């Protein structure tokens, strides 16, 4: 649905994006991650046709954004980072205006505006001035605005920024409801948001793609944690002798039960369990240690900086 190939963008002498390529399948939700200033917003602005790239092409729904901007724009719903709204207008008037300019035909206009108002929970504020509403409502209006015209592709730039926890949940719920129906690119620097809503993630840093993968692969297993009744020293040497174990650390020891974390290179859980039983120790607990998305993110971003 979205094909970005080799786009670069510079502002003056500053290279903001360098050879960025990725694709998004129809119905997929792509989490777009990166530290502040990594080039997330610039990429999104290029995708929406607001900025032209210096080189490279963007195709959405098969149309080139540079060559057929109007056709691409008809497929797009965009929520910019600062969610600019006309504060002087009422919610309903504003959404009507959006429906008109997005080319929603007159017979459907009213129903579609009303449906969107319902869907985004805006019914009780529909006839109030946008300027008088809270941040949470405004963000929902921003979402409503993006949804009008029933676009196939949604580009959401930090949709939950500045909201309270309850409002964040509401917006996430709304995004989840759209999963499968729409192709969505969601930019954020709040990582749990990606784990909760997205199927795949793309991490960019300093204008370059540093990782692009399914979430399961980004949150890889890096080891196991065990609780065993054993002598710490013998346990340590036994575990270290297993092939595939990289590092063992004793976390603590309480009432004869030792808790240790084992960093592994490959899948050796079965071997560890077998060795423990063989030695006649009591095994209380064994849990895989998964690197969270945070850890992957920090690792990827810092690796990049170390170079």
């Amino acid at each position, binding site marked *: 649905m979205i094909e970005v190939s080799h786009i670069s*963008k510079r502002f003056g002498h500053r290279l903001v994006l360098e050879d960025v390529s990725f694709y998004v399948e129809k119905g997929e939700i792509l989490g777009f991650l990166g530290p502040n200033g990594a080039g997330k917003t610039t990429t999104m602005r290029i995708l929406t046709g607001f900025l*032209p790239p210096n080189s490279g092409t963007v195709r959405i729904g098969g149309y080139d954004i540079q060559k057929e901007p109007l056709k691409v724009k008809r497929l797009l719903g965009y929520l910019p980072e600062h969610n*600019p709204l006309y504060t002087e207008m009422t919610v309903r008037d504003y959404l009507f205006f959006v429906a008109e300019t997005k080319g929603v035909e007159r017979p459907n206009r009213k129903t579609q505006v009303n449906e969107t108002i319902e869907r985004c929970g805006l019914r009780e504020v529909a006839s109030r001035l946008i300027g008088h509403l809270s941040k949470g409502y405004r963000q929902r209006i921003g979402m409503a605005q993006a949804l009008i015209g029933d676009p196939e592709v949604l580009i959401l730039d930090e949709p939950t920024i500045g909201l309270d926890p309850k409002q964040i949940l509401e917006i996430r719920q709304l995004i989840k409801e759209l999963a499968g129906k729409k192709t969505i690119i969601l930019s954020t620097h709040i990582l749990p948001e990606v784990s909760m809503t997205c199927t795949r993630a793309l991490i960019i840093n300093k204008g370059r793609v540093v990782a692009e993968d399914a979430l399961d692969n980004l949150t890889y297993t890096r080891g196991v944690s065990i609780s065993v009744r054993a002598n710490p020293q013998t346990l340590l040497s036994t575990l270290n002798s297993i092939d595939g174990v990289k590092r063992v650390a004793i976390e603590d020891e309480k009432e004869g039960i030792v808790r240790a974390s084992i960093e592994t290179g490959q899948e050796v859980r079965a071997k560890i369990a077998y060795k423990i039983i063989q030695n006649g120790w009591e095994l209380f607990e064994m849990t895989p240690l998964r690197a969270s998305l945070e850890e992957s993110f920090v690792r990827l971003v810092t690796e990049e900086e170390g170079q």
Partner: protein
Amino acid sequence: MKNIYFLAKKELKIYFYSPIAYSVAFMFLLIAGYFFYSDVLYFSLISLQARSGFMGLDITDWVIRPLLGNMSVVLLLILPLLTMRLFAEERRQGSLELLLTYPLRDIELVLGKFFGCLAVYALMLAFTIPYPIILYLLGRTDISPFFTGYLGIFLMGSAFIALGLFISSLTESQIVAAVITFGLSLLFWIINWATHFTGPPLSKILEAISIITHFEDFMKGIIDTAHIIFYLSFISLCLFLTLRVLESRRIRG
């Protein structure tokens, strides 16, 4: 075409949901009303003193021309306040970014804003229609210069609005837009004063680009296509420049 209408409607709504249109129109009508009142009163005073009644005194010279002239000065002061927000506010708020991702052409955006603002101006002028009606009812005289005068003042105001729209597209600050629009409008107004001490061909050129010299014939009741073409080309040039500014934003980012 439909999009131009939708965009113009949005501009109108914003003008009338906020106090902008009301305050600008109120001040304009207040001052225009004062001028009308004092001009008519002054006219009746001197026509009483001139014992021969209306002989030698013409309502066109004594009421209509001063009134239209004064109204045009008020417009010079007040129209920049109407146009300053058109693009500057959209850029400051960031809503221009969103608007540019909707399936709209740049030209539709520019014309939508222009006509939206023009509609407010036309409405403002329409509220002064009672003046010629009152004059006609009281004096039973020829008020035809009023009609050409209105055409002239509408064209001149449109030129100011087009200029204001262009300046507004250059900046994010409404104040800067208003100040520059006012300054340039004034300059186009008084530029023919220099003709007193410059000889031709410069004086001819200055005369030709001055926004007020083209207005004078309208106040006398004359419709000259040259003047209409001047205003229309002035407007087209400003709208064209606005379009270029929008395009260059895109290229430079």
